């Protein structure tokens, strides 16, 4: 038995003479006496094996991760679709990503073509589950399509169909939520950037009006029907996050919090780690539940690398992922495959963070190891603090 390649070590934690070990594959954590890390007792050995901190061979564990990655084992049976219903939006956020993406979409009109694409892809690949992420622009501008499509697939697939909406939260209505709850709505993701002043400055309505109170009122309603993921876009300018969390809890809203770094990401590893950690700590200190892609911008197994994950726009174009809209891989009427595959380099295969990053972005060559090395031990300290 040997120590796993995927272990992250934090020395002298939680106290002198002990080492905290976190495994990036199993996501298990142990704190053991430092002198026993390389020479564990039999009892400890068993526990370390159970946590995959101790493994039969590092080559075998790397091979199993690479094989799982290459064979799409992390998502074998679910078709995942990001469906861009419209490019239009009623907000004018200061950092609007869509302007940066240099993409042009029309409103989705040919719903039948999308349905045919979904049906044929599921059938050809033997997929039994479907998850749609309704996206925009602001997808609620075309909310009738959410109802239409979800009624069809909930009718066909029942609980094997689920959907999520990424929305600015200004157009949520109770009548829709109460219906959607019954036909597969799993969660909504809404961004609120700090307190009223901060948010209104960053995410005003196109009309110039403020959006903060509208969104919080809508979230009070949504809270009765659906799991809320409250996203906060962090940078040096967002303020009043503490106040936001307090105001939400006063309304009885305890969402899952997600942090996103403002794009384009301009920070060096050290600055980025410091920024992320400051907000993780703040959320943790306030007892806010977090589940967020803080360790990587694109997610571990990003949609670009998942062969069952596609982005479809209003022009029925199909994309590899939403990171790069220049890479159209087909349209809904023609067979679509995922042409771009990530080849994991030898450096990646030797990395502690392979099960987190899988070679990062398909389209942008970069390595986040420096950032991971800085941020991971500190995250572990925050999340294990009593």
């Amino acid at each position, binding site marked *: 038995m040997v120590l796993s390649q995927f272990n992250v070590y934090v020395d002298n934690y939680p106290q002198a003479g002990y080492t905290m070990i976190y495994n990036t594959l199993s996501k298990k954590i142990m704190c053991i006496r430092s002198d026993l890390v390389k020479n564990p007792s039999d009892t400890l050995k068993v526990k370390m094996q159970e946590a995959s901190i101790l493994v039969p061979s590092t080559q075998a564990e790397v091979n199993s991760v690479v094989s799982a990655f290459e064979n799409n084992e992390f998502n074998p049976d679910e078709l995942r679709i990001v469906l861009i219903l419209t490019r239009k939006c009623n907000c004018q956020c200061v950092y609007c990503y869509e302007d940066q993406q240099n993409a042009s979409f029309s409103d989705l009109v040919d719903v039948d073509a999308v349905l045919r694409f979904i049906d044929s892809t599921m059938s050809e690949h033997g997929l039994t589950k479907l998850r749609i992420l309704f996206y925009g622009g602001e997808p609620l501008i075309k909310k009738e399509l959410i109802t239409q499509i979800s009624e069809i697939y909930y009718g066909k697939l029942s609980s094997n169909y689920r959907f999520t909406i990424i929305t600015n939260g200004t157009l949520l209505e109770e009548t829709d939520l109460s219906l959607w709850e019954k036909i597969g709505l799993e969660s909504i993701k809404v961004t609120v950037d700090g307190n009223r002043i901060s948010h209104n400055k960053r995410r005003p309505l196109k009309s110039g009006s403020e959006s903060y109170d509208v969104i919080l009122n809508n979230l009070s309603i949504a809270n009765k029907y659906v799991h809320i993921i409250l996203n906060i876009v962090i940078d040096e300018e967002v303020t009043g996050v503490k106040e936001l969390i307090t105001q939400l809890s006063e309304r009885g809203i305890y969402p899952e919090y997600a942090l996103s770094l403002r794009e384009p990401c301009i920070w060096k590893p050290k600055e980025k780690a410091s920024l992320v950690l400051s907000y993780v700590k703040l959320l943790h200190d306030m007892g806010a539940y977090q589940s967020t892609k803080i360790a990587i911008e694109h997610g571990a197994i990003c949609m670009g690398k998942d062969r069952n994950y596609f982005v479809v726009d209003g022009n029925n174009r199909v994309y590899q992922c939403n990171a790069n809209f220049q890479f159209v891989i087909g349209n809904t009427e023609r067979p679509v495959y995922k042409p771009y595959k990530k080849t994991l380099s030898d450096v990646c295969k030797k990395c502690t963070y392979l099960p987190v990053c899988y070679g990062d972005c398909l389209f942008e060559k970069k390595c986040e190891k420096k950032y991971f090395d800085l941020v*991971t031990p500190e995250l572990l300290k925050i999340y294990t603090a009593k």
Partner: protein
Amino acid sequence: MENKQMENTAEEIVVELNGCGPNAVTGFAAN
């Protein structure tokens, strides 16, 4: 004193990841 000594010689100190989802430390979160 006795407790402290025991703690300092224990093979393992049990810690838990709390306040975070299973993927919060180094994982994937859906969009």
